[in-house]
């Protein structure tokens, strides 16, 4: 066989595999046992599309995109969403009725009761216009009517009224979910602020004590240490964005380690292996610092002799892997698991907090991985993507 014929066979095989896979998937999706199945599928599909648009709350853009799905779910001729500021979106025929809606929706917004519109409410000079009657159902979030869902048709039956009310209730849930999302973000920000204030008071006390001990014996060293301490606090108490570069975070860890070494001297040996390619990676502000502090504490505090702390940052292509390891007393894996799961309040240096912030920023597969056992040291690893949408290191 000639090389070119091998190539042709290979490429044809690849194309066949891809096409067969695609066709099988399509068939699986399209093959419904009955019309009921199909209707269920289509309704759920519309609902999931609409839910995606409502993720960010009931904004005009979201309403614009949602109404089409809402109309296909209700099967009515026109669907509109309106709030106290006016009509958010209208989908379907009879756009000229749009202007009447705010006045009609007003009582629903106030009372929160469903209203059926018939002849005197809806007048139309066009004899072909199918908009002859409608239903207005309230969208309630947090015990307030935030919007009105309107469905129109030539005639309104009890079925459409029930369906519209149910759909309005479903939108209410989605809006509340969006609100919950926003609150979770706020909570994360608040937690970050809390962590910033959490720079261990013991560390500051010990630091100043160590510096004081050098003031007489080695004034130059004391001055250097004080300057390091000043830089450390400026970074730790800064009011910048929520993210920083690994470069800045490591620079601050260096200051921290210089200060710790002033205290521990030869008892603390630190090794850093940093791939320069990962220095620009954006990470949550003060996310490595607590881990290093934890390692220094566990690597030294309750241990005789010299303690080793190793910090690695490795380039893995689209992600960077950061590892902090110590050869100290280690810990009970169950305790660490409880801390990471948020079940334990004994989160001394904020391990659980760092984990939560990493997950919030980059997704659940980017949390902390802790390997430890009593007497065997501790190794904390996490991976951050080099790029994540919306996450930028602020100086």
């Amino acid at each position: 066989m000639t090389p070119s014929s091998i190539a042709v066979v290979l490429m044809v095989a690849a194309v066949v595999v891809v096409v067969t896979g695609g066709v099988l998937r399509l068939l699986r999706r399209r093959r419904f046992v009955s019309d009921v199945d199909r209707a269920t599928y289509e309704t759920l599909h519309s609902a999931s599309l609409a839910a995606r648009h409502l993720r960010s709350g009931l904004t005009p853009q979201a309403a614009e995109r949602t109404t089409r799905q809402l109309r296909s779910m209700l099967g009515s001729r026109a669907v509109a969403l309106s709030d106290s500021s006016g009509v958010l979106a209208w989908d379907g025929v009879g756009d000229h009725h749009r202007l009447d809606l705010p006045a009609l929706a007003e009582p629903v917004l106030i009372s929160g009761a469903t209203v059926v519109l018939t002849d005197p409410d809806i007048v139309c000079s066009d004899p072909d216009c199918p908009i002859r009657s409608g239903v207005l159902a309230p969208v309630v979030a947090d015990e307030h009517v935030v919007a009105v869902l309107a469905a129109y048709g030539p005639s309104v039956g009890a079925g459409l009224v029930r369906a519209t009310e149910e759909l309005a209730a479903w939108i209410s849930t989605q809006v509340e979910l969006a609100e919950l999302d926003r609150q979770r973000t706020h909570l994360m920000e608040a937690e970050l602020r809390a962590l910033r204030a959490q720079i261990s008071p013991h560390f500051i006390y010990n630091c100043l004590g160590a510096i004081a001990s050098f003031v007489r014996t080695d004034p130059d060293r004391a001055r250097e240490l004080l300057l390091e301490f000043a830089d450390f606090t400026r970074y730790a108490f800064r009011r910048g964005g929520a993210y920083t570069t690994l470069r800045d975070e490591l620079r601050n860890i260096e200051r921290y380690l210089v200060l710790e070494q002033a205290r521990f001297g030869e008892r603390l040996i630190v090794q850093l292996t940093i791939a320069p390619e990962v220095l620009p990676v954006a990470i949550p502000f003060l996310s490595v610092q607590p881990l290093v502090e934890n390692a220094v504490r566990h690597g030294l505090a309750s241990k005789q002799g010299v303690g080793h702390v190793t910090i690695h940052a490795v380039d893995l292509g689209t992600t960077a892997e950061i590892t902090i390891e110590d050869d100290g007393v280690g810990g009970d894996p169950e305790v660490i698991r409880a801390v990471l799961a948020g079940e334990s309040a004994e989160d001394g240096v904020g391990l659980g907090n760092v984990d939560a912030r990493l997950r919030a920023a980059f997704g659940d597969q980017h949390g902390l991985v802790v390997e430890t056992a009593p007497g065997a040291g501790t190794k904390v690893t996490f991976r951050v993507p080099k790029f994540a949408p919306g996450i930028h290191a602020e100086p």
Partner: protein
Amino acid sequence: MSSPAGIVAISLVCLVTVGIGAFGLRLSRTTSDFYVAGRSVTAGWNASAIGGEYLSAASFLGVAGLVYSLGVDMLWFPVGYTVGYLVLLVLVAAPLRRSGAYTLPDFAEARLESRFVRSLASGLVVGIGWLYLIPQFQGAGLALATVTGASPSLGNLVVALVVVANVVAGGMRSITLVQAVQYWIKLTAIAVPAFVLLAFWARQGGPAPAADLSRTWGQVLGGFGGREHPVYSTYSTILALCFGTMGLPHVLVRFYTNPDGRAARRTTLVVVGLLGVFYLFTPVYGVLGRIYLPTLPAAVRPDSVTLLLPQVVTPGTLGALLSAILAGGAFAAFLSTASGLTISVAGVIDQDLLAPRLHHRGGGDVSRIQTFRLAAIVAVVIPYAASLLTVNTSLADTVGLAFAVAASTFCPLLILGVWWRRLSVVGAAAGLVTGGTLALSATTITVLGRPGVTHSGWLSALLAQPAAWTMPIAFAVTILVSLATPSRIPPGTARTMVRLHAPEDTRSSGAAPS
């Protein structure tokens, strides 16, 4: 034609490359002499790394082959390869770095806030990467065949296996220092034999190419190698090379290593210098080939003229040694470019296509390394299969087509993305689809079409050098569709633009520079 020295040189290059990839570079220091600021990759090293990854088999062998067979007009190729970085420097280098994007799909997502445009960009990155990998495999197969006398298809297989081994063994590493050293290896491998050969040439009184040839061959701006419609072909090629560089998958990745936008610009400037020096040497082989090798042996592609030349100029040990150096250099060129491209393509396949799906199926049991390895194999197998097809175009021409596709797709996205606030999601997607479809169809027809049917007249010129019409069309479609859909301008455009254009130190509000 088999030469033991050449085999040794190639094996050595393979072993060293795979070895470094597998073990990585372990540079460890203790705190006392560790300072992060001092450990940043300097512009010089980073530029060398870009050069090391960029100078491919097409540069090492192809440029000389083109000059040899088609004349001095082909010097536009090395000029274009270099000028591409000038365009990159002036238009997009610093903003791209400031965007924080690691890959081209990242930039698309950061600027347009759309998963859909990201997927489009991912598909195009894979397409361009594969198109660029095909000539790499052919070039390396050629080098292997010339040195060992084996059939070129066996050569392709060997090199495909070496690349897979290198990328898979090295995990996902692409170490700046390793690629930087590659540049200097390549420069040495091309420069030293060139000086030796030029010395021989000068000692023989500097003979000129045979008179009957020099009429068409040496004519400057004479006919783009005797092709029809030379003016169009020349301009179209220059356009593709100038604007395609910014859209190559493995270029942006290196910009990420720069600490800030200013460093990105400095790096690009050094790249232009380094590439300029390298491309001084490649045409020498084409010209000397014209003097010493007026006719090639039967069934030998002009692309191998660089490898054959030393044996003709100085038969014996010296010639064999120089040939071995050149073969080793060509192989290093091939390996670094192919590995860089494979890592980029596999990264995109892994991140955007494979990992989400496998994660979905495997319920999270599939590790990142495993999916990346799978992606690397997919990334190599397809261009390997395509490289076995009988192809009508030379190495540098196929690379030129990859540049044309990049210029018709990512160039509008990047330039308009960086400089035009009214770019809309729909406009960007329409531009990518239009430019990609047009340029890829032209490429497919040119590379796989039957000679005689598509290789004459205006049509063939338009298809062989498509950038001059596909790129303006892509720009026009992007702009017009964007203007027609002002409601789909990403909401965060103003914020993104500030981040792209404001120098880093002006954004640090209140804090003193550290």
